[in-house]
């Protein structure tokens, strides 16, 4: 093992050769390369991303290159790599590549183009759902972690309820009561702003103390909200909402997103609670940095490690959840194809056309596995406690 020795001798201020400076990214790649599974995961992750991109480009638009919705009934349930019976096909019905790469489904639609579209749709469902979950998680976690201590004052609750009720009644058409509530809400808001600026010094009568009394702390408020969300068995919450909202790709994303932010909130809150004790935060406060800037500029980047990990694994489980929903009949509605609904449509033909089940099944398996392995590798690298230590 040749050690490159830069031995130079200068008199007194001699600096022995030290390790070459590694940027954070180089170090990240070095650690990642050691975990071969994570690298494989990353490669598939990137490949899937490009397939999805290709899927978006090739299958959307009025006359797409690969038309996933082209119905050719006479070409029904053809095995993969089979040549189309050109004689009874109209010119525009002949598949673009000349053969059915992955065969056709029960309506004669080319499975290859549906898988392409599925890749794009499934990945968008995954990314957007996790995007929503992570966003809400960070905001709620941030607030609970950082502002946990100070308490919600009674007047704040009173004002918000009054305004909400006022707006609600107005919408519901009960004008008079709506206006009354709004007026009460606005005066309450004005009163509390004055109190905040301390103008009401002397005039605080006993019942005022009650009005501005502290109720519960923000942290308990948010944590109880998380408990409420956890009380609903996740799958039922998704099922109930998906079954009852007009089914569309976007509803599914929103629903999966809205029911999986609790995990991220807990991560971020735990990280922030420990970070808040660190000196660099108190130092930043001492420098007069504003609260929001401390949270989002200093603390959240530190909390990103667990969030990033749960995001990658979140995308994987979002795809799985979508597949489960399609099995129960509530997945993304036609004409969009997702790997989940190709699989669940194909399950009826497991004896007659097994490729309709196995191709999407293994596709989901490989991609979700890749996401998980990459996520696991990420967790090992980004988690300072797990770093290699002498």
């Amino acid at each position: 093992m040749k050690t490159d020795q830069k031995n130079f001798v200068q008199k007194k201020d001699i600096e022995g050769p030290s390790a070459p400076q590694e940027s954070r990214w180089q170090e990240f790649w070095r650690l990642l390369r050691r975990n071969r599974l994570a690298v494989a995961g990353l490669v598939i992750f990137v490949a899937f991303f490009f397939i999805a991109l290709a899927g978006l480009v090739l299958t959307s638009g009025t006359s797409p290159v690969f038309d996933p919705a082209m119905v050719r009934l006479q070409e029904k349930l053809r095995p993969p790599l089979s040549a189309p019976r050109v004689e009874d096909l109209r010119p525009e019905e002949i598949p673009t590549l000349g053969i059915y790469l992955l065969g056709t489904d029960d309506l004669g639609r080319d499975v290859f183009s549906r898988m392409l579209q599925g890749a794009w749709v499934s990945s968008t469902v995954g990314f957007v759902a996790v995007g929503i979950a992570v966003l809400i998680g960070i905001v709620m976690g941030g607030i609970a972690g950082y502002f946990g201590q100070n308490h919600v004052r009674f007047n704040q609750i009173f004002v918000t309820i009054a305004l909400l009720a006022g707006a609600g009644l107005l919408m519901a058409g009960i004008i008079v009561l709506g206006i009354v509530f709004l007026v009460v809400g606005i005066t309450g808001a004005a009163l509390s702003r004055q109190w905040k600026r301390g103008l009401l010094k002397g005039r605080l009568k006993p019942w005022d103390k009650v009005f501005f009394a502290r109720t519960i702390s923000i942290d308990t408020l948010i944590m109880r909200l998380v408990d409420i969300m956890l009380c609903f068995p996740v799958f039922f919450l998704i099922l109930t909402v998906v079954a009852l909202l007009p089914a569309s790709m976007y509803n599914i994303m929103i629903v999966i997103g809205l029911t999986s932010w609790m995990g991220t909130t807990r991560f971020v809150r735990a990280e922030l609670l420990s970070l808040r004790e660190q000196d660099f935060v108190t130092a930043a406060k001492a420098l007069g940095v504003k609260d929001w800037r401390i949270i989002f500029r200093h603390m959240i980047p530190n909390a990103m490690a667990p969030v990033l990990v749960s995001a990658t694994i979140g995308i994987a489980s979002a795809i799985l959840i979508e597949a489960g929903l399609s099995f129960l009949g509530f997945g993304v509605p036609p004409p969009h194809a997702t790997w989940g609904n190709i699989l669940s449509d194909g399950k009826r033909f497991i004896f007659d056309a097994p490729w309709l089940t196995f191709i999407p099944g293994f596709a989901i398996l490989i991609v979700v596995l890749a996401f998980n392995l990459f996520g696991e590798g990420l967790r090992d690298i980004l988690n300072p406690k797990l770093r290699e230590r002498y």
Partner: protein
Amino acid sequence: MLLVQDLKVYFVSDSTVARALDGVSYEVRTGETVCLVGESGCGKTVSALTILGILPQPPAQVRGGKVLFEGQNLLDLDEKELQKIRGNRIAMVFQEPMTSLNPVFTIGDQISEAIMIHEKGGEREIRKRCIKLLQDVGIPSPEERLKDYPHQLSGGQRQRAMIAMALACNPDVVIADEPTTALDVTIQAQILNLFRELKQKRRMSLLYITHDLGVVATIADRIYVMYAGVIVEQGDTAHIFHDPRHPYTQGLLASLPTRTKRGGALHTIPGTVPDPAYKPAGCPFHPRCQFAIDNCRSQFPGMCDYGEGHLSRCPVLYERARPPHGAA
């Protein structure tokens, strides 16, 4: 009693090989207190862990040398046999009292556990021994302390508990890895006195690892000075303190703030300890040595004997101080 011969331990990661121990040899005779001195990162803790065989193997690899304990090479023993020796014949006290005790078990559990593993004994009988041990290490009202959890004790008391745990099966050798560094000075003195009393009472040998020369002076019989994974000087405490023969030892002693040098600027050794993976060729100290000559840069120096067990790995000074005091 305990002999370490030419121990080589390297830490291999995919791009670099860090040579933590580059052929270290030292010896702890029965009843003797030997001090291993060196700046942090010079490999003294690694050598202690290697003796007990609890060095995490994936990154570390023992590349050579022997660790002889009563004639047996510990490196050849398998896990089962090593477990019989650890805690029973060789015990260790660690540096961080705050984290070295298991927070979820009571002090009593953790001490009696050490006894139960190596010796049979009834429940009550072990409890009595624990109480006696806590008294030996000077913890007040030991019965209550037994039931306490580590976070309920102060730093000093926790270190005393660690020592009690180490002495549970009255081992032949106790390795103390900078036990007092994390404590403040007053407690440090008490712990050092404790070590001295225990040594007299229990006829055990002590391998004391530290970077603090003040502590070495008060407790050590013999001293090994380590630098960058190599023993650069060894000898009796008197020799090392009064007649240092290696530029690094001289530098260390010169930078000690003693009453006599009040007000003057303290002497410092320029530069920093080399990274074990990128050690300079020849004598590892040569970039920071004021007596360095070309030879030092290329040739790895051997040990020069100044008599009475006082050796130093610096031929340059050896040449200069030709007539050794009293040696042949």
